[in-house]
């Protein structure tokens, strides 16, 4: 299973060696660390040449305020023809938490990116409609950041 996944990574590397920063493997899954500024090119290559025609999931994560780079975005690619999965990962620092949108490649990325922006606070450049999606538009802060308190900043009130 993972041999096939490594072929995709090799193809990626032979197209442009700078696209692959590092590759890690675990639990039958392969993760490719991709430089933030080339994520759209990598996704376009995998979609058009390697058959990863579906973006199954996109999610952001906060590694903690003390970490640098602090944020990451995970792209879970899936294929409806060969049924393999590949995870791409982008690391982003706290001062420059922005990455180009992939919603031009897969329209399903639109809501996933809005959710990531809403809860983790990562900006997706070129996104057609980057608004909060789950939380109200006047919400203060980004709830899934590690330094955001579980019960929010203000005391809970029903008034």
């Amino acid at each position, binding site marked *: 299973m993972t041999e096939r996944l490594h072929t995709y990574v090799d193809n990626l590397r032979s197209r442009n060696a700078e696209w692959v920063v590092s590759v890690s493997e675990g639990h039958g899954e392969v993760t490719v660390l991709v430089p933030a500024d080339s994520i759209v090119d990598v996704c376009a290559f995998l979609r058009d040449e390697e058959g990863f025609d*579906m973006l199954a999931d996109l*999610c952001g994560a906060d590694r903690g305020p003390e970490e640098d780079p602090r944020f990451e975005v*995970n792209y879970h690619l899936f294929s409806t023809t060969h049924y393999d999965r590949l995870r791409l990962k982008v690391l982003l620092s706290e001062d420059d938490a922005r990455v180009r949108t992939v919603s031009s490649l897969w329209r399903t990325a639109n809501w996933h990116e809005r*959710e990531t922006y809403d809860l983790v606070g990562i900006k997706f450049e070129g996104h057609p409609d980057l608004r909060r999606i*789950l939380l109200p538009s006047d919400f203060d802060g980004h709830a899934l950041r590690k330094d955001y308190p579980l019960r929010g900043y203000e005391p809970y009130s029903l008034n």
Partner: protein
Amino acid sequence: MATAVENIPAKFEVMDRPLGSEMTLSMGPQHPSTHGVLRLDLKLDGELVVNVVPDIGYLHTGMEKLFEYKKYQQGIVITDRMDYLNPLGNNLAYVMAAEKLLDLEIPERAQTIRVLMCELQRIASHMVWFGTSCLDMGAMTPFWFTFKEREKILNIIESASGGRMTPSYFRIGGLMMDLPAGFENRVRQFLDDFPDALNTFDTLITGNTIWQSRTKGIGVISKESAIDWGLTGPSLRGSGVELDLRRHNPYTGYETYDFDIPTETDGDVWSRFLVRMRELRESHKIVRQALERLKPGPIKADAPKAVLPDRDDMRKHMDSLIHHFLIVAEGFNVPPGEVYHAIEASKGELGVYMRSNGGPKPERVHFRGPSFVNLSALPVMAEGEMIADVVAIIGSLDIVLGEIDR
């Protein structure tokens, strides 16, 4: 006399062209056909839908945040509340992600029971979809029939787990407890009765001309567009893509079961309806196969540091008591790593991204809900349709807001 009749058509001309004026209508969040609290900003030209903007988040409860503050085993009960029509599917996705991180091997009997329960749950979930989507379009009668069938399944689930809507029956490493006495007979009784109910539904609805004319050619989404929008499950199979994770990314031994993947090519409400109706029969087939395979055996993985010991062991063995105390009081450490595990839930691909930093609580848990993604494609299907058809399209997507908002 004859001249008077001839004059009428000129007076009452049928309006089948756009009015050329737009109006914005806010549908929901308390609208009964939005299956929860979904609000749609509809831009209308007469009755034609020009634009739809779904507005979600009314049920947001910060579950993904909550996971980070709960131990792995405590997270299971949160998953019940996401897609509340398919709680066992959510349990399964969550526990399997944790089991992947722990590298646990699940015994045969537990796997078979998981398949059996998940397929029963899928039937129950489809029953609610069938009942409510008919109700949305004004057919009230099938609703009572489907809820009768669902009630039988909920009773079966209750007999095994103690919960009806929130079973939390699957645990990391196996099951909460073994099946109760008489369980197999209850399921067998249900399986014997269910085909008759399916035939009743087909007589009431599938062969009904009103139903067919309300659903055929409505809310069409092409194969390419469906993949682009990330549709999964019956909604994708209705557009002619044969993709079922039970077959193509098999888990819990689904590869050993004999079942078909129903697909339709038109991509409209009627296609998605047919796919789900056929799926009911396939699930019925799988439940019967699983029931025949049930053999006595262990229901928990052999991992004393992560899986709660049997009550009887605790009374006899000191180490079991210690492990029990440690798991309950402190939790168990999960090796660092990250996984994405996807299962075929009743609505599509339910994926769990879980990352551990080595402690007893996950560092990040993300749920890729099929309803969330399927709903995002609503604008493509609804634009250009009539406002009454929007209700039909939402029904055909089978969304649950608990999972969308999380």
